[in-house]
């Protein structure tokens, strides 16, 4: 019963283990994949930023370049404004130069107002600072304008004064150009600082990109390693599960086997009981019928004074009574087998056999039998008294069914099973009458005897069989046939299934 409980418990634990051990690998995998996606997204974002930066930088540069060209054009226009005041001294054509001067002034002013408009589109601080420069330029232009007007007006009337004004005009012109140059330089400085900031940003983005690349590379490596780990784990998990399943199945089978074995055992016990009752009612009745029958016949023979018969009548009655006594002894003996499991001890089979041979001393002398005993018989864990009975019955049996034309030879020993080398086969071999193969099973039955003339009650081999079975073993007989002697063999260690089979066969 305790064994069954244990195995039930075992099954439950195995089941729990299976459910509890289901790994959360897929979750870890999702997390890794999530990180990967995040990294790739971030990398795309950074790439986008760099491209945008590049585009923005190109735009800004274009804008600043345009502005610079505006300034150089302003500078060129200023030269045009300045030129007529100088040229008049060479061409001496005041009207013509005045016209050129007016034209150049208009162009210059237009361009300047254009620049102002575009300056107003700039950031306020920068636009303001440029506008301050524009005001300066306007200031210088007014001076230049005034000087030019003076030159053109005075050229014919007062050339000396005109010359003097020309020098002043040139100064104003250079001041104007200098302001443009300052503006130019300022713009270039802004451009340079813009570029530096952009390049710094780009560099930092580049650093991020490198970081991300390293991160992605690491993640990919991790995923690859994890995939490897996963595949290994999955394989292991599958193997584990298969093993668990196999174990579960095996447990089930073992349980089934146990159930089968127990059922067979119970059936065997039941059948045993039935057979016992049956044989008792049948075989004990037999001598009773003889006794009462021959008492009746005895009465008649006495009445008839049939003296010959009287003696045999008495003998029949006495024999029947003796048979009955033997039967009762044997039955009592048989019923005791199997109750002494606690009495099993390690005992030398050689000791058992020699004590049995001592008990049989007289019979052995009478029959002149030659007994050969293997001096190296094993130590067995059995109920010693019962195994004395086994050997007593087997040796007595060999003597009982000896051939009368040869010296009885009995060999007692052990051998190895041919199919299972670990299995020890115990044997008692004789050179007696042998056994017709048809009766190999029947001889082990209760009250079975192959001859109605043999001594004994037909319980001996049934006792042997019962004792061996109770010890978890199996007994059988081998014989080449009538006249060829017989070998009784038994094994003591059968597994549950074999035992169940043995018992089912018995039933």
């Amino acid at each position, binding site marked *: 019963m305790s064994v069954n409980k244990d195995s039930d418990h075992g099954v439950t634990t195995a089941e729990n283990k299976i459910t509890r051990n289901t790994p959360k690998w897929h979750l870890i995998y999702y997390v890794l994949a999530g990180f990967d996606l995040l990294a790739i997204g971030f990398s795309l974002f950074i790439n986008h930023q760099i491209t945008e930066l590049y585009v923005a930088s190109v735009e800004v540069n274009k804008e600043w370049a345009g502005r610079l060209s505006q300034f150089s054009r302003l500078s060129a226009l200023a030269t045009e404004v300045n030129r007529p005041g100088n040229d008049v001294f060479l061409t001496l054509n005041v009207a013509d130069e005045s016209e050129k001067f007016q034209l150049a002034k208009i162009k210059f002013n237009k361009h300047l107002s254009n620049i102002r408009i575009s300056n107003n589109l700039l950031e306020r601080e920068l636009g303001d600072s440029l506008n301050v420069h524009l005001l300066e330029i306007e200031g210088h232009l007014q001076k230049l304008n005034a000087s030019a007007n003076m030159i053109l007006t005075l050229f014919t009337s007062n050339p000396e004064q005109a010359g003097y004004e020309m020098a002043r005009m040139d100064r104003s012109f250079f001041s104007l150009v200098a302001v443009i140059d300052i503006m130019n330089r300022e713009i270039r400085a802004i451009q340079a600082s813009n570029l530096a900031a952009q390049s710094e940003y780009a560099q930092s983005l580049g650093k991020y990109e490198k970081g991300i690349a390293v991160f992605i590379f690491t993640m990919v490596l991790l995923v690859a390693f994890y995939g490897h780990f996963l595949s290994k784990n999955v394989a292991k998990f599958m193997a584990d599960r298969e093993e668990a399943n196999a174990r579960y199945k095996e447990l089930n089978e073992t349980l089934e086997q146990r159930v089968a074995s127990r059922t067979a055992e119970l059936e065997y016990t039941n059948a045993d009981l039935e057979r016992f009752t*049956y044989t008792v*009612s*049948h*075989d004990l*009745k*037999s001598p*009773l*019928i*003889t006794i*009462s*029958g*021959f*008492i*009746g*016949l005895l009465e008649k023979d006495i009445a008839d004074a049939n003296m010959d018969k009287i003696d045999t009548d008495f003998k*029949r009655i006495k*024999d*029947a009574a003796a048979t009955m006594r033997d039967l009762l002894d044997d039955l009592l003996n048989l019923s005791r087998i199997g109750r002494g499991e606690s009495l099993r001890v390690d005992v030398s089979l050689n000791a058992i056999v020699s004590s049995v041979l001592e008990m049989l001393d007289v019979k052995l002398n009478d029959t002149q039998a030659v007994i050969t005993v293997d001096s190296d018989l094993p130590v067995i864990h059995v109920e010693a008294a019962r195994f004395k009975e086994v050997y007593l019955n087997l040796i007595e049996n060999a003597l009982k069914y000896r051939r009368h034309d040869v010296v009885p030879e009995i060999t007692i020993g052990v051998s190895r099973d041919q199919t299972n080398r670990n299995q020890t086969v115990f044997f008692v071999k004789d050179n007696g009458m042998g056994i*017709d193969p*048809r*009766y190999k099973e*029947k001889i082990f039955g209760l*009250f*079975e*005897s*192959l*001859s*109605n*003339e043999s001594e004994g009650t037909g319980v001996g081999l049934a006792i042997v069989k019962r004792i061996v079975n109770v010890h978890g073993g199996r007994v059988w007989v081998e014989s080449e046939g009538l006249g060829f002697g017989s070998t009784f063999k038994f094994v003591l260690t059968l597994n549950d299934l074999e035992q169940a089979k043995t018992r089912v066969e018995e039933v």
Partner: protein
Amino acid sequence: MAEKITNGKPLKILLVEDNPAHAEMVMRSFEANRVANEIKLVVDGEDALDYLNNRGKYSDADKHSNPDLILLDLRLPKIDGLEVLDSIKTTEHLALIPVVILTTSDADMDVAKAYKRHANSYLVKPIEFDNFTKMMDELGYYWLAWNHKPFSRVD
């Protein structure tokens, strides 16, 4: 009386009995009631089948002719009574011979098994001697005198 009914032909019983004391009791009863002319005793199942099939030491068919009645014990050495019965009832030239089971067993299973194998009658040996003798007398008269035999013997 019996001889009159059977027109002077000798009547033979085959007694299959391993217990010598019981065999003697049956034989002495039949000697006393003088119903049968001959009782042949065989002591085990193998012997019985050898006799009926004229095998081995019974190969002389004239000397060992088929009986008019078989008295069969159930528990027999070598071949069991039920097997002998089965063999008789499935062998063409033996199947019609009346087989009366005469045994100590009154187990239901034995009775059922015997009838299933076409036993013609099932008798349990009585323990009291008077009943035993009475049963043997009536058995003899019934099966050998009153009972109409299935065929005329050709010996």
